[in-house]
């Protein structure tokens, strides 16, 4: 399967080509190159997936294939960094997800970004992102993953700051980069600790479940926890930063300043699930050696999920609502991984997490692209500027509704199946957590339909010009993704992805499924009652729970806390003294040296007057003195 290398190489070439020609070619040409490259990559990914999943061996287990492997940097016998391509069920699934969503976004951007300045630059960055993300998912070792991890970070930074003349976009891109980079510090330290003790970066060895690999770490403890727990917890911090887990989620809502298709690709479907993918990739380590950390992940995920869902209920910017919804849904995936066991039906959580990752990527990309289509029509992100759009934008309306139903967990849409499996896995682990997640599912349905009714129903807002349906370049991806969203739930996912790679049959649990459907329906009807027509109830509720409402619309003041910590505490009490030390002590020493040298040289410079006769006089005198010494002594 050597051709899988092309999946990586083609987007890179496309990035280099588009980046070099910049604006010398017509935007349409540049866009076509990027899109057709992505088309080939998507086809190759589908082909790879087909070949891979149809080749389960005798035992019915999916093998790990490494079609390409090269030793890239060799420092010592043991310390070497490799690059390669690793195919196993989750990486193949991610290949499909990334290339599909990326292709849809490429096509969609033809319509959405039409006439924008820097169209070629935009496509070049999209190619760079796709390359990095594909490299991340097929990484054979944790260090390669880290390299591509940083690359997706930088492409996200570039794309959020695409409208670099807008101060908010620049601030948002910096915020995203700094917050995730800060989390990546934890990731790097975790990698170093892990590899220091195990003497390898390789995923194959790390996740083999062989106790000898971790033999060096079992005795070592640090501050009450084993070193291995520290390593895996630190690695999870890196994942939490990218996947916007509380309290590192603050960058994701601001990242919505980027172009909407970018939000769909990077901040909904692919990059933000990298943290989930990372935990899934290292799942055997978490499960067998540090179950406490894994449970911690579950609780972090559950809290984030609820927290973000509450905030999403009161936001007014449609992209912000979707951003918090993304955070909440990634929380679901984390919970699901956290509660999962290993093997067969025990490993339901693992499989459900990956399934939800897959379906979420599709319907969340669809929601974002739909939101982009709406923004394209009304030129605003604010919900109050919309209303009654269903008459003007039928395609967007229907596809958006499909996505809303899917995320709310209404059968037979895909979100129902994946979310339901997550809920039943959670119920098995800890019923309280299961009920909490069901409640969050209700909140999800509520805020999604609040969004839906506010946009497409409700009072019509007077627009400057009548809104119209978007061009075909934008509606085709919507229709495609909506189709996938409708049917993806019927994929027997357990046949392909499972914690121990053995296919298993997962069946619905009527109790859990029934409950989640009821909760979702109640929430939807509640939202319909409140927002379909004008209704004083939302305002009344907001006034009754004024404190909660205000706190939620300020995102529970987490950003303010960060600002307080950085500006008031770190800047005043750490940075200022350091700056003083730098300016006065370090610079002072250097300036002192320079001053002394200058002063000394001014004192002795008369000695070199530049008058030849004076020199000759001194030379003569010296010669005479030497002659006198030679003669008389």
């Amino acid at each position, binding site marked *: 399967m050597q051709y899988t290398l092309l999946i990586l190489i083609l987007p890179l070439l496309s990035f280099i080509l588009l980046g070099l020609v910049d604006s010398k070619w017509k935007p349409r040409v540049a866009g076509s190159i990027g899109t057709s490259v992505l088309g080939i990559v998507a086809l190759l990914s589908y082909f790879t997936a087909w070949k891979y999943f149809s080749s389960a061996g005798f035992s019915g287990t999916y093998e790990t294939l490494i079609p390409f492997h090269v030793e890239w940097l060799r420092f010592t016998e043991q310390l070497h960094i490799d690059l390669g391509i690793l195919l196993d069920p989750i990486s193949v699934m991610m290949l499909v997800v990334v290339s599909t969503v990326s292709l849809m976004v490429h096509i969609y951007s033809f319509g959405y970004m039409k006439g924008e300045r820097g169209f070629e630059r935009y496509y070049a960055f999209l190619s760079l992102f796709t390359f990095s993300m594909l490299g991340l998912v097929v990484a054979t070792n944790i260090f390669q993953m880290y390299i591509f991890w940083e690359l997706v970070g930088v492409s996200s930074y570039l794309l959020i700051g695409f409208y670099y003349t807008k101060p908010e976009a620049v601030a948002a891109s910096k915020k995203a980069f700094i917050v995730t980079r800060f989390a990546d510090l934890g990731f790097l330290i975790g990698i170093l600790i892990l590899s220091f003790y195990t003497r390898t970066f390789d995923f194959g060895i790390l996740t083999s479940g062989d106790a000898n690999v971790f033999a060096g770490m079992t005795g070592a403890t640090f501050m009450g926890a084993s070193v291995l727990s520290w390593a895996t917890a630190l690695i999870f911090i890196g994942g939490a930063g990218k996947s916007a887990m509380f309290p590192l989620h603050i960058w994701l809502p601001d990242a919505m300043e980027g172009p909407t298709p970018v939000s769909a690709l990077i901040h909904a479907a692919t990059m933000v699930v990298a943290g989930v993918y990372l935990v899934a990739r290292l799942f055997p380590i978490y499960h067998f050696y540090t179950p406490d950390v894994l449970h911690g992940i579950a609780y972090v995920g559950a809290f984030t999920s609820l927290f973000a869902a509450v905030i999403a209920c009161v936001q007014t910017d449609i992209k912000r609502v979707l951003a918090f919804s993304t955070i909440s849904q990634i929380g679901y995936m984390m919970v699901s991984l956290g509660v999962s066991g290993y093997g067969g039906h025990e490993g339901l959580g693992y499989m459900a997490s990956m399934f939800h990752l897959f379906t979420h990527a599709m319907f969340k990309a669809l929601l974002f692209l739909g939101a982009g289509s709406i923004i394209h029509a009304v030129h605003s992100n604010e919900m109050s500027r919309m209303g009654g759009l269903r008459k003007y934008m039928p395609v967007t309306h229907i596809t958006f509704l499909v996505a809303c139903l899917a995320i709310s967990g209404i059968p037979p849409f895909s979100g129902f199946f994946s979310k339901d499996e997550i809920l039943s896995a959670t119920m098995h682990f800890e019923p309280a957590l299961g009920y909490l997640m069901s409640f969050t599912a209700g909140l999800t349905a509520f805020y999604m339909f609040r969004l839906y009714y506010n946009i497409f129903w409700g009072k019509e807002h007077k627009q400057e010009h009548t809104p119209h349906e978007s061009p075909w370049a934008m509606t085709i991806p919507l229709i495609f993704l909506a189709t996938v969203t409708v049917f993806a739930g019927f994929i027997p996912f357990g046949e392909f992805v499972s914690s121990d790679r053995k296919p298993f049959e997962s069946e619905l649990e009527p109790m859990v499924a029934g409950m989640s459907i009821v909760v979702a329906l109640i929430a939807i009807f509640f939202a319909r009652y409140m927002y379909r027509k004008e209704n004083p109830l939302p305002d009344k509720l907001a006034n009754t729970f004024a404190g909660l409402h205000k706190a939620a619309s300020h995102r529970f003041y987490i950003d303010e806390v960060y600002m307080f910590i950085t500006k008031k505490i770190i800047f005043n009490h750490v940075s200022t003294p350091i700056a003083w030390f730098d300016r006065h002590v370090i610079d002072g020493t250097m300036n002192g040296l320079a001053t002394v040298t200058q002063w000394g040289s*001014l004192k002795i*410079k*008369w000695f070199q007057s*530049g008058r*030849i*006769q004076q020199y*000759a*006089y001194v030379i*003569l005198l010296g010669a005479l003195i030497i002659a006198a010494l030679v003669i008389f002594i």
Partner: protein
Amino acid sequence: MTGLFDNFFSGSVPLEGYIIVSLIMFFAGVYGFLSRRSLLMILISIELILNAADINFAAFNRYLYPGHMEGFFFTIFTIAISACETAVAIAIVINIYRNLNNVDVDNLQELKEPDSPEEIKK
């Protein structure tokens, strides 16, 4: 010393005679080089120093190595080189004169750095 005076009017001039003459010329040249302010006078002083050296070459060759000719050749070389050098120097002096309207060495300070830190700051 007696030999010098004995033979002064009769017979050959002894080596010391040449050396004394060249010594006087050399120090006259050095004195001129150090004390004069005019470029032309300095040039003439340099010629005096060179000629003093030439006399020494010729005299030592004549007295210490009769039959050899190297000293004389050297003298002729030196004369040729000093002629060239004078030509170049005169050209420079003439240019200086054209620019400054005099040939006083003390006035040639255009390329020099100022002397005191106060002047540097200006």
